[in-house]
């Protein structure tokens, strides 16, 4: 197999999820993917879904003055190990996830995943491992007498061999 061009995200560039005590709302959904330029994924085969998650759960009176239990999970899921003509480890259907067990009233969770137009190539040209970096921005807002806010941004990478990185 000849040289593989850049890994291209021909899917969505942004996934935006929003949650409050009433549930999760998809503001902007869809999937990103990571195929080489000029290759739309038709004829590819195989692959296994994987999901990585990070959970925030508060279930006790952390402060005397704040009895606010919450339980939500942010994640990324993707299809890895996709082959083309028996070669490569490509990725597809990359998306952000947000699941809510419980949120107090006036508590919102905002998750935005930003995908670049190009991913990274790992492995060799004969056995490409596609990798797609994404930026996960998690913003929490809470009105408890006054408005408070918290934001975390992480550069996550998911790869076609099923591995991943999510900095702590």
């Amino acid at each position: 197999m000849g040289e593989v061009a850049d890994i291209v995200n021909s899917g969505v560039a942004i996934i935006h999820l929003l949650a409050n005590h009433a549930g999760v709302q998809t503001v902007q959904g869809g999937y990103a993917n990571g195929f080489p330029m000029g290759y739309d994924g038709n004829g590819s085969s195989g692959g296994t879904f994987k999901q990585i998650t990070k959970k925030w759960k508060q279930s006790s009176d952390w402060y005397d003055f704040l009895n606010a239990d919450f339980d939500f999970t942010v994640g990324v899921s993707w299809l890895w190990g996709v082959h083309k003509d028996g070669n490569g480890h490509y990725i597809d259907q990359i998306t952000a996830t947000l699941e809510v067990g419980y949120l107090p009233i006036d508590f919102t969770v905002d998750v935005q995943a930003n995908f670049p137009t190009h991913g990274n190539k790992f492995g060799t040209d004969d056995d490409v491992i596609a990798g797609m970096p994404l930026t996960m921005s998690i913003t929490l807002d809470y009105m408890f007498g006054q408005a408070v806010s918290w934001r975390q941004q992480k550069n996550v990478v998911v790869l076609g061999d099923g591995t991943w990185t999510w900095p702590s």
Partner: protein
Amino acid sequence: MADIPADAPRSEDGHYWWDGAQWQLVDQAQHNGQQAAAQQPLTDDLFANMLQAAETDVAEA
């Protein structure tokens, strides 16, 4: 009256605390002090600390 342990369970109205065997009346002065503490504003820093304590490591689902 004995000092109330910081982690002692409280009644919902805040007037009683559990000593491990029975409910005890919270001293009124102490109760008033705690009400003052209850009015402490939730700041961004406290909110961040609370979230950090509730955060778990990334895991494969």
